[in-house]
């Protein structure tokens, strides 16, 4: 256009709650209604958890790490415990490994249902949001029955788990899963058939398979672009190599596929929980380990609800870690998010689609900048 006016405008979205109740700033460059560029700023939340970890003992750190993210607290402590156990060179008892899987999968169902509610809210379908969050209460109840807490469970400890299960508790969990399963099936039908959901999500936030791989996307975001990659299969930990399950993928590469992948993953998690309950080995739940791990380096990763979660610990033989690095799935998905938010060729991004696209990667900016979040409880 040969006018003296600027054609490209900057529109800031955030830093107060751009989509989720968390601070992040998106500086959009728009040409009319179309987003042509985006600059992300996630610096509003940095509180230095990695630095704080260097001043605390391994046991104290367990509770610090748990507070990085309310929703993925089970995955965070699991990754940390795996790294510390590797430094000690010790295996934990089989019963504890199965219980860790059980807790992990319950928290995955919880996280995916929470996200589904948020996604429905972004679309403007608040009734769906209320229904989903009511059913999410079932998983919170199961987590409370298992660990004693609804959100911050403190279930994993270095060397095993904190609490054993009884037969009565296992049947409570089984009943909860039986109650949940038909609800999730119903939600899947709604997502597949409701016109307002289809219109707001199909063809929105496209991430092609090649881009998903090149930007190192992780978790459901990657799998919704048709890539079969899951840490539970690729780099098995706990007892995942003994538990049969399918890696869910979808090839729509859009926000709608991301909803379907997460809903199908809930169904897989229900099956994994049932398998854990029926095949739960007998034995101790804790292997006691010394307070000071030997000198060395450890790297562990876990498939958190949002994707690959990575911890690196460098130990100098004292009771405090020399360096603890946490790499969370949201940070890994940010380059992919930038691709999704940029119009290119025939793919156009409207400003009104930005909240849906942002929500579709299930972002947790507090995780990315590493600080406590409230956890939506």
């Amino acid at each position, binding site marked *: 256009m040969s006018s003296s006016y600027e054609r490209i405008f900057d529109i800031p979205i955030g830093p107060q709650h751009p989509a989720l109740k968390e601070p992040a700033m998106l500086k959009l460059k728009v040409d009319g209604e179309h987003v042509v560029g985006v600059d992300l700023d996630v610096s509003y939340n940095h509180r*230095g958890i990695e*630095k704080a970890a260097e001043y605390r003992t391994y046991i104290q750190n367990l509770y610090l790490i748990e507070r990085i993210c309310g929703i993925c607290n089970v995955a965070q402590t699991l990754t940390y415990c795996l790294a510390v156990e590797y430094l000690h060179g010790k295996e934990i008892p089989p019963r504890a490994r199965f219980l860790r899987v059980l807790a992990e999968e319950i928290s995955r169902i919880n996280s995916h249902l929470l996200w589904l509610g948020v996604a429905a809210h972004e679309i403007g379908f608040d009734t769906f949001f209320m229904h989903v969050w009511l059913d999410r209460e079932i998983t919170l109840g199961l987590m409370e029955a298992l660990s004693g807490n609804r959100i911050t469970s403190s279930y994993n400890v270095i060397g095993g788990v904190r609490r054993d299960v009884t037969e009565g508790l296992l049947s409570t969990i089984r009943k909860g899963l039986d109650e949940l399963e038909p609800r999730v099936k119903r939600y899947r039908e709604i997502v597949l058939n409701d016109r307002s959901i289809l219109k707001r999500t199909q063809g929105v936030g496209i991430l092609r398979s090649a881009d998903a791989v*090149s930007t*190192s996307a992780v978790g459901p975001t990657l799998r919704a672009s048709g890539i079969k990659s899951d840490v539970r299969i*690729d780099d098995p930990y706990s007892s995942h190599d003994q538990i049969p399950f399918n890696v869910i993928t979808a090839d729509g590469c859009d926000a709608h596929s991301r909803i379907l992948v997460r809903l199908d993953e809930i169904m897989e998690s229900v099956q994994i929980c049932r398998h854990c309950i029926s095949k739960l080995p007998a034995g101790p739940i804790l292997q006691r380990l010394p307070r000071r791990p030997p000198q060395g380096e450890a790297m562990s990763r876990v498939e958190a609800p949002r994707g*690959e979660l990575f911890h*690196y610990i460098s130990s100098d033989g004292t009771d405090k870690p020399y360096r603890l690095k946490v790499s969370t799935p949201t*940070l*890994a998905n940010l380059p992919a998010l930038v691709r999704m938010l940029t119009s290119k060729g025939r793919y156009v991004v409207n400003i009104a689609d930005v909240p849906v696209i942002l929500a579709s990667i299930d972002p947790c900016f507090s995780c990315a900048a590493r600080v406590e979040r409230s956890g939506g409880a």
Partner: protein
Amino acid sequence: MSSEEAMATLSGIEGVREVKKISERRIIAPCSRDAYRRVVERLAELGFNHVVAITGVDAKDGIDLLLHLGSSLMVTVKVRIDPSDPRIASISDLLPGAEMREREVHDLLGIEFEGHPSPARFMVSEDWPAGVFPLRKSFAPAAPEPRRSCQQ
């Protein structure tokens, strides 16, 4: 690719020394700063194109930069950087997944990534003083004030 094959290939690259297997699916390959970009290029050709994380560690006699690559077998490329000249080649053009991770390491440890496409501040807030890198061991956070003094 099995870990033995990966170790053999890595050992053959110039500038890589003492490749170490620390567990079933973890390999550490220390290399020199000049060889870093070449090693990453070679690894990307071999299919190690998934960036898991980039870690910076302030070891007392230098800064270690660790690049973790790979989705099943994880190779960690380890480079020692002199803190008086903290520069290294950026690999964001080879592996776009590294872009924000390099910005993070720059903000927290003060490593300059040469050739980075957008080296703006990312992880620390805009009012954070320039040239102060929180994850350096020389940076000691102030202890919080006690809520109540003992004399009261």
